[in-house]
């Protein structure tokens, strides 16, 4: 994800930090896929018995994919995370534009 964060020409404020929502979506996207695959293909009865027959890997994996999707949708709808209070009017549109570019990363 270091490459997911493009060097912005915005000044060195922490507000230029990559969007946390991307990171959450990334983590739970990866976790979700691995768990779902595990849940579908690995059906060891001893493991299933642990959770009284519920396929916990599958359902947790699906839940994580939903969470990741929620963050992706939120990111699409409201791309700009922050505008610094002091130079708000200028920063606003600029960060909105720059936030559109790196979305391939998510």
């Amino acid at each position, binding site marked *: *994800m270091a490459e997911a964060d493009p060097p912005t020409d915005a000044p060195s404020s922490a507000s230029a930090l990559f969007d946390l929502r991307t*990171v959450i979506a990334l983590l739970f996207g990866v976790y979700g896929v691995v768990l779902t695959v595990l849940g579908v293909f690995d059906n060891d009865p001893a493991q299933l018995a*642990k959770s009284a027959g*519920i396929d916990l890997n599958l359902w947790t994996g699906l839940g994580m994919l939903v969470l990741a999707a929620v963050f992706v949708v939120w990111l699409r709808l409201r791309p700009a995370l922050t505008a*610094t209070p002091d130079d708000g009017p200028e920063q606003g549109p600029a960060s909105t534009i720059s936030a559109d570019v790196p979305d391939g990363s998510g």
Partner: protein
Amino acid sequence: MLLAQTDLRLDTTAIDYVFVAIYFVLVLGIGLAARRSISSSLDFLLSGRSLPAWVTGLAFVSANLGAIELIGMTANGAQYGIPTVHYYWIGAVPAMVFLGIVMMPFYYGSKARSVPEFLRKRFDSTTQRVNAVTFAIASVLIAGVNLFALGLVLEALLGWSLVLAIPVAALVVLSYTFLGGLSAAIYNEVLQFFVILALLIPLTVAGLARVGGWSGLMEQVSAGPGGPDQLSAWPGTTLTEIANPFLSVLGIVFGLGFVLSFGYWTTNFSEVQRALAARNMSAARRTPIIGAFPKALIPIVIVIPGMVAAVLVPSLAEFKANPDAGGDIDYNNALSLLMGEVLPNGVLGVAIAGLLAAFMAGMAANISSLNTVFTYDIWQDWVRPGREDRYYLQVGRAVTVIGCVLAIGTAFLAGSYENLMDYIQALFSFFNAPLFAVFILGLFWKRMTGPAGWTGLVAGTVAAVTVDLLVRGGVIALSSQAGSFVGASAAFVVGIAVSVGVSLVTTPRPDAELVGLVWSLTTKDERSHSTTGSDSGWYRSPTVLGVLVVVLTAALYLTVP
């Protein structure tokens, strides 16, 4: 003995470590990425005051959702059952709402960068220094507790030795706070919040499924050693160790709900700092209130697994029936025992990542607040004033390294105490209770003077330490848990008394200097914030959110009367 030890070891496979590895790569990545956006000490130590409220709000609750909290509260769930919810509902939510609505305008509005700096503005620089030094000591001691507890889990679950586990854990926390400062710490806390939920929710679902659902759990708990008392929150006589139901309720409401909870949530800089990193006053005020919503709901996935563990895991059920039988198992093992009992490989890996995340959250919060206080309050305002900002950024980085190294030392010190929770409570009574007394008096009484501030702090701490020594020495016959509660109360009362006494014989500061720092000298206008743009809308009003979360908490109490 040998059997009990292997009992605790989790049955992990390669796939579980994949989840742990993914998590650690991401955590270090956040540190690296955050590093690029840091160029000033304010960026490093207060995230440039730029974070949105939902981020700081989740970080606020996550900084408290450390491992001691997770392990301690599942243990309480196993031991006491439903009454454990008091720690969340009456013991946290009201104080968090109070912090957001009443106190945050003064904290954030004063532009103070830390609690000690606020004390300098309100009192004098001696008060700032006394508080900064005690806070620095307390941070290093508590970071050590977190680190030691993390080492214990690595030892128990994965079989690493403490001597290896403690430095490795310190190194991971060090690398991301060193690189990314408070932003990295806060971003990781938010991530940890979700990973910890990914541990707790499947654990609750699977646990309930195994005991036959909610009704199955109710039946088995009331048939168990604790009886049906464990199914209702009030009067909570087992929790308070007060036999009289009326006094027990009083103890919960005033002891837990007022002195302990307000003292912790409103003056603990590890918490308050998360709100100071918010991007404006509105976001700062919403921070603790947004945090209160998850805080009110989280006991559902912490207390229930604790109760399930005590009926489902045979070794723990045996311990509950007969606690004096000896052996390695006790309530502190409830969480890891239940993880091993109900989670299949896969989710188990996520759960281990979540547990490690919880430990790192606590320690990172201690280290990042230590940074800020040491750099600004001890170094910049006292020891080496007037250097350029670049210099203080380097000091901040150096303190991160030194703090982590010292924490390794205090981790082994914490290991010499029998009960970690008692150790934490004692530290709390030394440092937080006097601070709360001075703070609340200074906020509402403009006559309170500068010297009264620091004498109140010192006297309160001395009172708490004295009580602790008397309890340890057996002069006062109390359990150590009750002892630290008496210590906290003594610190509060003595702190107030000394502050009032000293104020009456010293000269108060002129009113003009105290505007924005004392309630009666601050107009309603100065205490409010902008309600336009991204701060508009009723759902962003701190008062509306505060009322909502209090109503939610009251409704939750009605479900377990």
